[in-house]
């Protein structure tokens, strides 16, 4: 497709391992929002054994079951750490969700006590308190900038940020990173991590466009995103906020 618009290269990491909560909805959302604006979004799916040969402007990774997450940790640290780390340091956008978010921290100790290494993009550690401890499950609403984010969380691990990362948003309803400090997700430079899984972006079009704007700053600094008719998205956003009483 030749659109005349800028080209963005998106790497969708491990859709075969990490699509537990329909996380690919986030990629679908970015694809459509680019297409509606004439931006060419080239999506490469990166499977576990693949190499990432060229730089990318957006990285997206979702959540997986513990076993798949162990495989993902292995693949990320052994094969993909350099490329992803270099691109993100160079201003590529990242959306890491749930299990993928945990693997972008320094480490994740799972329910069995197995420690998985992460890429350290976020200065944070995640610890699973054990299978007998209740998971953090439910609708979640947060304050983000001067607006809200709405999503659903379902995670056993509790994440604690270090000095080098700050939370993405402030929990209004739900658990967030650890259920105690009121923080949800993490931001480090142009990378965003969050426990709000599944179809986060379609009901949060402002966050979707924030990711696109971040990526575009790197490839086409003079380009500005044209507004879209997001009436349907915002109505769904407000209805979901209403369901959690916000």
């Amino acid at each position, binding site marked *: 497709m030749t659109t005349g618009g800028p080209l963005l290269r998106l790497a969708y990491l491990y*859709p*075969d*391992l990490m*699509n*537990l*909560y*329909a996380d*690919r*909805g986030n990629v*679908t*959302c970015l694809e*459509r929002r680019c297409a509606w604006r004439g931006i060419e979004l080239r999506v490469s799916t990166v499977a*576990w054994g693949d190499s990432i040969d060229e730089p990318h402007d957006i990285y997206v990774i979702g959540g997986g*079951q*513990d*076993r*798949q997450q162990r*495989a993902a940790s292995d693949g990320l640290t052994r094969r993909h750490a350099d490329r992803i780390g270099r691109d993100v340091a160079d201003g590529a956008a990242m959306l890491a969700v749930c299990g993928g978010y945990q693997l972008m921290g320094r480490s994740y100790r799972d329910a069995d006590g197995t420690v998985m290494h992460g890429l350290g993009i976020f200065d944070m550690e995640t610890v699973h308190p054990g299978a007998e401890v209740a*998971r953090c*499950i*439910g*609708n979640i609403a947060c304050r983000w900038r001067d607006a809200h984010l709405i999503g*659903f969380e*379902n995670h056993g691990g509790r994440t604690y940020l270090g000095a080098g990362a700050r939370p993405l948003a402030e929990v209004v309803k739900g658990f967030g990173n650890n259920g105690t400090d009121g923080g949800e997700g993490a931001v480090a430079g142009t990378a965003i991590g969050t426990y709000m*899984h*599944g*179809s986060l972006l*379609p*009901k949060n079009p402002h966050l979707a466009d924030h990711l696109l704007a971040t990526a575009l700053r790197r490839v086409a600094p003079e380009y500005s995103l044209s507004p879209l008719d997001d009436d*349907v*998205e915002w*109505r*769904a956003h407000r*209805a*979901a906020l209403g*369901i959690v009483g916000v």
Partner: protein
Amino acid sequence: MRRRLQRAAATAAGRAAAAVSRWTRRGGGTAISGLAAQAIAPQYVPDALNRLSSLVLVSGTNGKTTTTALIVAALRAAGHEVWTNPTGSNLERGIAAALVRRAAWHGGQRRERSAVGVFEMDEWALASLLPRVTPTLVVLLNLFRDQLDRYGEIDTTARAWRKVMAGLPDSATVLANADDPLVTSVAQVHSGRVDWFGSDGLGEAAVLDPWADVRGCPGCGEPLIYDAVTFAHLGRWRCPTGDLVRSQPDVAITAAQPRGIDGLELTLATDGRHSRVEAPLPGVYSAYNVAAAVAAARVLGIGSDAALDAVVATGPAFGRAEVISSPQAEVVILLTKNPTSANQVLDLLAGEPEPLDTLVLLNDGVADGEDVSWIWDVEFERLRPRRLTLGGRRALDLEVRVKYAGVRPSEGDVDVAPGIADPLDRALSRADGRLAVIATYTAMLAVRDVCVARGWTTPYWSNA
């Protein structure tokens, strides 16, 4: 003696609760009566089940209700008295309720001893009940991602199943889906007889859909190789390291030709014989339910001809492609519980010769899954409706999904109305001939309630 009295009291309490529940129109009384009985006698269910002449338990994510109905039909056609839970109330309390309805006031031991019990069981209820009963046959249909907010992960379910399989006595037969690698990893734990149903020569694509739940070998974790995929992660699979091996099905589906919403033409191979069946059950997924029922009948000593005749005579279970006539249109209710069943339903509609008027209802109750993100793994891109109406408590989530899928009805705009009765009425007012209603579990019950209130059909418990 004390136990018998306790049991009689439990039965009485359960019946009273059911009567009150029906009388106050709160529902079929299916769960409440079971809760009452269990409260008085906690061992009520295992005690009663162990007194039956034989006990069949059917579990798996999709197809439990239909498969149970088919096995029951085959047994009844062969002259057996069968006790079952045909309302889909498949937790232990639902079984307690079914037993309460059947049991005579004084415990009814004589009748119990001549009856065969066939019960569908929720995946986790099976894991909890199995160590306390001695079943004749355990049917394991499939494992798909479903209501994750309640259960966690399907690997966790499989682990729980393997644990109870290890303790299952050798006298029990396990009947399992050879096409499901996860179910295979469970059934192979059983040290007694294991029979298999599955496909042979069905399916072609060797690549799994992106939403498929199982991709790695449950044994060694290596990516599985598929020589054929029927749908989701079902098919003829191989593990590259060979630590888990697919079994040859004892009852194999060798051909399956969907006939749209109305049914399915399939061929089954059993013991070297091929039989063609026209089942009034739609979709390729129904072929697995039929194969499971025929294989179960075979284990229970019923001839395959008799079992097939019973299948042909058995229509869909309530809410599963059930057809209800309204003054405006024929309402076809298609239950969807997870990405796999929803994608199967969309396949079904895509097989209709003409686009259908379609109503999609999404609820987020506990029984639906409170997390609605799974709709992003449903390929609404394949939906080609004539007119399209969206409803349910999360109608607006559907509207966003349909927008990003680029769904264009061939007539009119997408109509959105939260709730159940309102979108149903709006869809019916525009419908022509047939209205396909795709609904999650509680939405399916609610839409049926509306149809019952208007006198278009009877409550689901009335044919139990």
